[in-house]
């Protein structure tokens, strides 16, 4: 497998969806190719950083409007 092949298979590799034979071939390439190893590692970190980031609390004005709409539609008296 060459460097273009690594990029082509990158998503399936990171998601653990590559067939074993292709995965082995890809990892064999990574052993000898620093550039591909860095791309794989930094792409994985990109996903993880987004994946781990919690949302900020809902802005108070947005939250207030949401609950007001819900109370109105769910038939509950406004507090």
């Amino acid at each position: 497998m060459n460097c273009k092949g690594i990029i082509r298979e990158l998503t399936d590799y990171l998601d653990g969806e590559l067939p074993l034979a292709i995965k082995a071939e890809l990892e064999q390439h990574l052993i000898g190719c620093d550039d591909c190893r860095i791309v794989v590692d930094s792409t994985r970190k990109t996903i993880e950083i987004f994946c781990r980031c919690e949302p900020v609390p809902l802005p108070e004005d947005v939250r207030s409007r949401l609950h007001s709409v819900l109370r109105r539609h769910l038939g509950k008296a406004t507090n």
Partner: protein
Amino acid sequence: MVNRDCGSIFGPITWNRTHGRRCVDRTRQHFVSAPETKPRESTIVREDESALVAAAKSGNIEAFEELVSRYESKIFRLAMNITRNREDAEDAMQDAFLKSYSHLKNFQGDSRFYTWLVRITVNEALMRLRKRRPNQVSLDEPVETGDDLMPREIEDWGPSPEQRYAQRELGTILSEVIEGLEPDYRTVFVLRDIEELSTEETANLLGISVPAVKSRLLRARLKLRDRLNKYFRKGEPN
């Protein structure tokens, strides 16, 4: 008047996420510095969710409001990530919660309530995105060959590069970087990597093929990697 001053919608980094399960699979592969990932929610929380859903189904409005309070921040972030427009995101969120309440009796409980809510929100958000930008959400595209995707800037990030930034600063960086993605790529990335929908589920929701989902996800991941490189490359000062 559209309010584009969205601010950051990404907050603190946490390891306690259900996402951790899939991340663990990723990190088990070679060449990976594995972080300690733990499931975000316990069985107790899931049972609690089931009890709240059951109570809401039987007409308990307080139980439904508890579900709303529990997920409102995540649902707003999801809608913002798809629409990148605060007004549309707020409308999508409100309609998603209202629709989930009015269709609650149809919810069979074969998936988590949150997953069901995500699907409703995605539909609401996509509807608004397509209305506002009808020419920017395409249906399909050829599978990548890898020829035009080779990254140009290749620099080691070192372990835990995000720790070089304060939480607020990191949230701003992530919001800016994801906002710069084309809607097609951003939506797939959000559904697959942040909300953890399967490739097939993402394809169904977006009305595109599985190869198109994979193709867009690859491009999205590489583009985000490329844009984060200047912040996270080793030795980059704060």
